[in-house]
């Protein structure tokens, strides 16, 4: 997971992280491919390979938010955000500019000593920030182009109680959870074909990877794995989850009620702690796109509790990733044709609705 988080994989430029994900899946999958959009697709075939009871798709997004160079000014780089970056966390952040070669840089801003009290009260807007790679302008012009990707530099940090802070926990922690799920199932026989997809461009392009991979794979069930907000001091928001209490199992219009019930029953049977995650509308995850692909897909969402989302110090409890994997593995092993058939929609003149 650390390798996944420390790798660069900004929306649209996920290949470095994609390679690590593919290598991680490989020992536990029958097949791993990368499609034309960059999605990494791992397949574990059903025990009865020629007649699987159905297909399940797990989706965790590969891409992270980042920055992109928009212009060069006297050797300094102006930039824009790729995905939802809170500009307030950027000043003083170390970054990597992916130009002709990787260039370490700093997001600079003017020092407080020269700013008026009034200026210091305000958030520095994006167009007043710049990246400094510490090189003369002519070298910068030769090495960096408009459109070059910039990733945040952050080594993962071990905190107390097996909590870890890193960048891109959203959503590499979910990719790690999917790999862990495959690992747990490596010696198991499943009735269904299992597709684990590390999707591209969830953050910046309206769930592009999830939509397109689900269109191709046409699964009977789709479960998105993402991160969800965990409580911190001063956020009196409800609803919110708690770190270390297990994954959130979402319910609401985005979620198929029978898949939800089955996940809950599985978690309770296996004594895996989980949390409620009521979602009255759009979940803001791949699940939102998966549910309405083609004729519709019964969809669910598991959320790994995470503090400080979309910063370079996203923090979670490792145990929550393990629990998510255990829950998915148990759920998948328990799937059979009867359950899947019941989801496909009923001919209402024969059965009660």
């Amino acid at each position: 997971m650390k390798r996944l988080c420390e790798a660069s994989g900004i929306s649209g430029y996920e290949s470095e992280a994609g390679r690590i994900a593919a290598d991680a899946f490989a020992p536990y999958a029958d097949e791993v491919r990368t499609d034309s959009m960059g999605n990494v697709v791992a397949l574990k075939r059903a025990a009865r390979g020629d007649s699987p009871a159905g297909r399940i798709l797990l989706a965790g997004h590969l891409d992270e938010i980042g920055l992109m160079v928009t212009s060069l000014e006297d050797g300094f780089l102006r930039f824009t955000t790729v995905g939802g970056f809170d500009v307030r966390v950027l000043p003083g952040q170390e970054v990597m500019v992916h130009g002709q070669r990787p260039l370490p840089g700093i997001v600079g801003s003017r020092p407080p000593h020269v700013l008026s009290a009034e200026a210091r009260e305000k958030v520095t807007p994006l167009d007043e920030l710049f990246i400094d790679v510490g090189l003369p302008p002519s070298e910068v012009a030769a090495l960096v182009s408009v459109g070059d990707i910039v990733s945040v530099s952050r080594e993962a940090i071990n905190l107390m109680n097996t909590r870890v802070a890193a960048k891109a926990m959203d959503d590499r922690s979910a990719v790690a959870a999917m790999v862990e799920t495959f690992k747990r199932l490596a010696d198991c026989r499943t009735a269904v074909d299992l597709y684990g997809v590390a999707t591209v461009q969830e953050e910046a392009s309206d769930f592009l990877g999830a939509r397109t991979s689900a269109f191709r794979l046409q699964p009977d069930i789709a479960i998105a794995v993402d991160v969800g907000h965990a409580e911190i001091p001063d956020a009196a928001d409800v609803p919110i989850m708690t770190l270390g209490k297990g994954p959130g199992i979402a319910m609401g219009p985005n979620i198929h009620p029978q898949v939800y019930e089955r996940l809950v029953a599985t978690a309770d049977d296996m004594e895996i702690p989980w949390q409620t995650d009521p979602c009255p509308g759009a979940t803001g995850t791949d699940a939102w796109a998966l549910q309405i692909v083609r004729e519709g897909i019964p969809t669910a969402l598991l959320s790994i509790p995470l503090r400080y989302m979309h910063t370079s110090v996203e923090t979670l409890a490792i145990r929550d990733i393990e629990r998510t994997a255990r829950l998915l593995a148990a759920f998948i092993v328990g799937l059979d044709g009867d359950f899947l058939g019941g989801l496909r929609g009923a001919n209402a003149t024969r059965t009660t609705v």
Partner: protein
Amino acid sequence: MLLEQLSNAAGVSGNEAPVRDAILAYVRDYVDVTQVDSLGNLICLKRAAGAPECQRKVMIAAHMDEVGIMVVHIEGNGFLRFRPVGGIDPRVLLSKAVLIGEKMVPGVIGQKAIHLLKEHERKQVVSVDQMFIDIGAKDKADAEQAVKVGDYGVFATRFASLGPTMKGKALDDRAGCAVLAELLRGGPYPCDVYGVFTVQEEVGLRGAQVAAYAVKPDVAFVVEGTVCDDSPKKTDVSPTTRLGAGSAISIADRSAIADRRLVQFLVDTANRVGLPYQFKQPLIGGTDAGRIHLSREGVPTVALAVPCRYIHSPVSLMSQADFDNTVALMKAALSRVDEVVK
């Protein structure tokens, strides 16, 4: 009366089953095939009469879901926190009654008594995250006997006729569902008709998208309950639609530009049969047509609606004549739909 039954039923986006059950009971003996898909859309096929010349598929959509609320948290003291499902103006929520969950547990959205309010508080709009529902519970454990996080809630409004008009909740779009149900009970028509009662329109036209993909229609009509803002105003602006002026045809809204041939077809039909109609103010709101018309390689689509005052609030109002005229217009249109969908 079906519309009354549908208006009173609880069917918030994502939980439309009670509405679907009522509709199914009403139409099942008049259609050839019914099916429920994985999102909960109810698709009813009424085949064309005899050996039809028309080989085309006509889809008619009306959405079963209503805007409502979802319980997201239960406080230690037994009060419930909630969020809207679909678009609700928070200003209509204070001091209203709701019914929560399958058991329809009554609750009230309270607000501090006026006597206790400071002057500046009386001018502030209260946001949803500051509101709460009181079901009379003593504490959290007590509340959990009756409701749980994730439960849906609807406004506790009873439907009633006021003579020329009727009032009730969720007329957007139970009115459309009732129109469609009547169409399925009528006919048969010259082409195969797919009556699709969609889900989750209020949270993003989602049911219609997957239903259109599955049905693959050649032409589509959407029947809605739409904005009617004809109360007195200080300035000369459009009322969007007028109560009693007939079915409101959409030329364009935020989600779709109607196929002009279909707009003309409805106008011609109305003129032939002598039915009143009006044009809805362009670019207000969106309907299932937004997703249907972009399905696969595109589907010519038009939306028409029964004008409803106060939609997306606890109680709306519509005209009996507008409802009847919409049924009549759609019946007349379907009876000659083969002319427009060659």
